[in-house]
């Protein structure tokens, strides 16, 4: 009966979600520099837009 401790699920799920983010994040690490540059540029544009609109 509940040998695995149901309360622990909260923490195990948190850990699993974090690990999921790690895997998704790791996918973007491709070594293609042009992609990195493009992403940085997009990020910069977003920041500028936020600053400009505020």
């Amino acid at each position, binding site marked *: *009966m509940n*040998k695995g*401790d149901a*309360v*622990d699920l909260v923490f195990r799920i948190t850990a699993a979600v974090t690990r999921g983010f790690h895997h998704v994040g790791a996918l973007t690490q491709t070594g293609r520099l042009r992609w990195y540059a493009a992403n940085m540029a997009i990020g910069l544009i977003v920041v500028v837009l936020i600053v400009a609109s505020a």
Partner: protein
Amino acid sequence: MVLFVVILALLAAGVVAWASERLSKDAPRLVSILAFGAGLVWSAVLWLDGADAGGLYAAMDWPWITRFGIHLALEMDGLSLLMVALTMFLGIVAVVSSWDEIEVGQGFFQFNILWVMAGVVGVFTAMDLLLFFFFWEVMLIPMYLLIAIWGHEEKAYASMKFFLFTQISGLLMLFAILALVYVHHGATGEITFSYKALLDAEIEPRIAIWLMLGFFVAFATKLPSVPVHTWLPDAHTQAPTAGSVILAGILLKTGAYGIIRFAVPLFPEASADFALWAMLLGTVSILYGGAMAFSQSDFKRLVAYSSIAHMGFVLLGVYAFNELGMQGAIVTMVAHGFSTAALFMMAGAIQQRLHTREMAQMGGLWKHAPRMGTMTLFFVIASVGMPGLGNFVGEFLALLGAFQENWVMAVVATLGIVVAAVYGLYLMQRSFQGTPNPDVASMRDFGLREMSVMAAMMAGLVWVGVYPQHVLELSNATIQTLGILP
């Protein structure tokens, strides 16, 4: 002065133990035994000498980082003395319980044990919040290493879980400490981390409740209380025997000590408002821990869950906010230190002999090892709460205190004692009694070394159980000076 020397001596003994590995295999553990033995004698001498007029056994206050009002302030009152003596005693038990369990890194192993205990002595005596936090962290890292290096099959998972739980809850406490100092600075213009100065801090109730929760979460995680208890079964099960003994015997008590010394006195009104919830958490811990213990098939895991149930009584007693409850909590801390340390030592001994912790692979062990069986029976009965042994006194007083405050909660919590009898006797039945397991051909019984520490722990439990006044006097002095009771 003397307290600082003791902490430094334990740290130094750790280094000596590590270095002495070159001399012989036995040298490191002999250094540890000597260090803890000397510490135990020292605490006994302090106790026999008696306290000074202010109720203190030792005190010192040196400036450390004056710019931020941080002091090397250490003080030992009755409660601290009780806990430090228990620390030294269980240090010896821990070393003996892992006597021939550790194959590699004997020196570094003893180094870690001595450093954990140095941190623990610091935690039990610190009178400066930053110093307290510092020692809180000193405890953590050697303990992490003990599990991560010498643990069992899932040591990486268990040690990381232990580390994250303690570290994250510790950060909440650090945040609360800094906020408390900031608020105090805003009111008085003085930056200080001194415990005594901060006791008088005037804090808005709206803020106080959050700061109190910061402390409470850190201590409740260490205690542990449901729902932040889940690191404990993993850490205890995977730790080497000495690690389990230290974790259950002492580290859990630092959580209880923190609540009694810091969370409640620093925020008396906020704690009083929160008392009902804390008592509820205690009651839930008692019943949930008990039910979980009963569901386990792993000897060590069962004992680990039973610790959660026992520490629930501490929470219940402290937040009853009366003398009986507080006394009960403190006696439970001491008695649980003895009884659980003994049961973890037993679990380690069985695992070393049978290479399993599963109770399904035990059964009828009494036939092979009658001394181990007798010892297990004694400590199971003690942790079930038989009158005449320490645990009964503690749990009974805690329940009595809780009854005056909230009788419904006390009645429900009392059911926890019935649950304890169920899982305790079930543990005994599955491992030592019943039909002998044909797979177990023979098993070495306890020798003189193991029996002598077992006898010392039995004597401790009988002492606390039959004549609890010694413990009560020490703890009462602290309860009166803390002035947390209405």
